[in-house]
């Protein structure tokens, strides 16, 4: 079924389909799909993707019977279970959770900053059927943990979440994606950091082989704010991590890190894009990947420095280890610089595990497999040891051990 028919048939299930403005925008999107037809040749970000899953999909959405649970047993700490992308409303002195509203649709969905039109964001806007909005109120320091649960097989979730950190607030956000069914989630997170606010965003992804996860975040940082994101991808199903950041006011910072562990026939596509639009800002993009069996990965990073963004510091690093002869890795670290007083650099390496290091360990009496495992662990040690949350650190260690147990 083509995208247009798919949309028209399921219109009643889709958010805001009676809003005229939004409808006009969606008509435009349908037009884009009709004209472009997911042209793989001219759009690198579609590399390695099995497009059939995303163009010819069968739309299915169920409104969950049970509403999500919001707990704040501990002080300043909330745990949320989002079911099929929905979350019930909640309000106290520190935070406010509501459904996603029509006026929120325009944030980023209509944003032109994404180069070449990101098809998956457009699909999200077109079929939007769930999502919520969380506001962290002024000068609060809180923790939120969100577990994402999908109730049925073959669901297509198109979810949009807005996070707003008001002035002086600080948020520690942990998102878990651990789904065992054959569903597809397309999630768009739009994050706004007001003056002097902070957000530490952890994403743990561990889905079963037939679950597709497409996750896109867009963050915009105002003066003195900091956005940190750490993505740990252990999924056996397809994952797309695309993260866009804009530093719109002076002295703001963004740090995007990711590690992916893939194996079998799995594919993952990753992208980080940082736009420096003000002076004295800093950015850092680090992605590391370990690829086994016949897996494939891509990583695109892009640092864009506007003419006004003097005194910028922007760093990129991408590293990949290929454990098997059939794995492949494509990386494209891009710098676009229009200001002269900047310090920008990127580094990228792809290769096998260092043979000399293996030899050293083996000469100390270690088996080849044990040596390989030690070297993989040390490859990502820097990222793992920087996690200051003990519980998180433990979860990730366990998943790492599980991944390594399959390495031969």
């Amino acid at each position: 079924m083509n995208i247009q028919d798919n949309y028209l048939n399921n219109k009643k299930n889709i958010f805001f389909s009676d809003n005229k403005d939004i409808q006009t925008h969606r008509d435009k999107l349908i037009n884009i799909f009709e004209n472009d037809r997911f042209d793989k040749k001219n759009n690198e970000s579609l590399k390695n993707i099995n497009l059939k899953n995303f163009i010819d999909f069968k739309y299915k959405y169920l409104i969950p019977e049970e509403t999500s649970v919001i707990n704040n047993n501990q002080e300043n700490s909330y745990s949320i279970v989002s079911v099929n992308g929905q979350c019930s409303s909640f309000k106290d002195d520190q935070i406010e959770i509501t459904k996603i509203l029509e006026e929120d649709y325009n944030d980023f969905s209509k944003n032109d900053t994404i180069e070449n039109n990101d098809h998956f964001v457009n699909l999200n806007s077109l079929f939007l059927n769930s999502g919520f909005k969380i506001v962290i109120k002024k000068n609060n320091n809180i923790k939120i943990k969100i577990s994402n649960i999908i109730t049925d097989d073959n669901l297509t979730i198109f979810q949009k979440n807005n996070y707003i950190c008001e002035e002086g607030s600080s948020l520690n956000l942990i998102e878990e994606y651990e789904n065992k069914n054959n569903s597809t989630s397309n999630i768009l997170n739009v994050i706004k950091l007001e003056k002097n606010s902070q957000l530490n965003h952890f994403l743990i992804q561990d889905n079963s082989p037939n679950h597709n996860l497409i996750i896109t975040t867009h963050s915009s940082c105002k003066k003195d704010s900091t956005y940190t994101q750490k993505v740990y991808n252990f999924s056996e199903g397809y994952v797309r991590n695309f993260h866009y950041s804009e530093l719109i006011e002076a002295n703001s910072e963004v740090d995007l890190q990711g590690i992916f562990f893939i194996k079998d026939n799995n594919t993952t596509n990753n992208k980080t894009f940082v736009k420096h639009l003000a002076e004295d800002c800093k950015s850092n993009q680090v992605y590391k990947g370990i690829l086994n069996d016949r897996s494939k990965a891509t990583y695109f990073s892009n640092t864009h420095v506007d003419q006004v963004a003097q005194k910028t510091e922007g760093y990129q690093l991408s590293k990949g280890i290929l454990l098997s002869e059939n794995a492949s890795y494509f990386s494209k670290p891009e710098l676009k610089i229009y200001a002269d007083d900047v310090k920008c650099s990127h580094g990228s390496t792809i290769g096998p595990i260092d043979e000399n290091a293996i030899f050293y360990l083996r000469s100390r009496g270690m088996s080849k497999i044990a040596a390989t495992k030690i070297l993989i662990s040390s490859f990502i040690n820097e990222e793992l040891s920087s996690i200051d949350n003990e519980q998180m650190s433990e979860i990730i260690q366990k998943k790492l051990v599980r991944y390594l147990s399959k390495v031969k």
Partner: protein
Amino acid sequence: MNSETLNTLDSYSKNKYKYGFVTEIDEEKPKKGLNEDIIKFISLKKNEPEWMLEWRLKAFSKWKKMKEPKWANLSFPEIDYQDIYYYSAPKGFEKKPKDLSEVDPKLIETYNKLGIPLEEQKVLAGVAVDVVFDSVSVATTYKGELEKLGIIFCSIGEAIQKHPDLIKKYLGSVIPAGDHSFSALNSAVFTDGSFVYIPEGVKCPMELSTYFRINAENTGQFERTLIIADKGSYVSYLEGCTAPKRDDNQLHAANVELIALEDAEIKYSTVQNWYPGDEEGKGGIYNFVTKRGLCAGKNSKISWTQVETGSAITWKYPSCILKGDNSIGEFYSVAITNNFQQADTGTKMTHIGKNTKSKIISKGISLGNSQNTYRGEVSFLRKAEKARNYTQCDSLLVGNQCGAHTVPYIDSKNNTAVIEHEASTSKINEDQLYYCRQRGLSHEEAVSLIVNGFCKQVLQELPMEFAVEAQKLVSISLEGSVG
């Protein structure tokens, strides 16, 4: 940036293009425009055999179906292919002169202004020159000496007639006509260029050199160069380009193919100084060049060195296909853009064979309102066991109106191959400037010294004959800006 730097920039940006003069010679050219008739006309003028004409027409029919590649970070008005002369030859040149005394003295004068070692200079410099004046190869020197060794160094037109076997075998084997629209265009209408064949086991004793020069207004120059190094041979080839000043943009779409067989080595050096346009970005050459080398045999090596200072638009990616086991590809580049120049240049290293190695060193310097992009692809295919790549690209920005971009594509399909890439972007270090000035250097001398140091890694790869000219060119280009 302090006011002194700005003043220096200003004084130098007034420095005019030194090679902007036009030699007035009667020219014979057909009407503007691109169609089958013009291709037949070119083929007839060049006295080409039937199969060559067919080859051209085939390429033309491919070109008609193609669109220009759009991925480069360049902006320029649409090229009107029907508004270009595709053939321009100084009159009376259908019959080639036997020696230099028969050549129009005005031509010789032109080259003397450029400082090319022709006439007496050629003896001193010891360089054999195959000069291309617009489309016809004017004089080929040192031919006899090379002939003794069995080396063929002639214009491509001559090669088509005298060595059809080699041409049939190798022309278009590295850059197929249908590769992209500029290669198809070149294949259809190429008028001249050089042909080099080095026989087995011969080390070419001198540097071979061609000087390209666009002279007539509204003339596209489409030269085609083919270099074949047979087993165990070695050749170093120099190419230099300069164009006189014009207001209109001119199109230049060359194809260069290199083939290195077993144990052979080709070193290809370019100094490109086409007219870059004036201070307001008016005029200048559109340079769309396809250069590709094939390391066909084991242990072969191809090395590209380029100094790009000219052209309003540069679109150029000298590449290596590393097919033979243990073959080596190298790419050294300095690209300087000033005023409204745009350069999108880099390389492509495709590793196919085992133990293949490649090295990329790219230095970009952006000044004024220019945009300078490095775009390079390194790919390891499945069978490229133990392949190795090292890439370094550094950019220097001078002034806050220009841009420096780095777009590497890194693709690995082999788990024993190692790929390393690093890049940095910065402005001229104030501390270094301060240090130099303290030692008594003027501001511009200091900047020049630092920039020369920045480029040194690449400039030292150039052959002696070229290094001096290249260094001069770098300083001339910097004159408009830093010193």
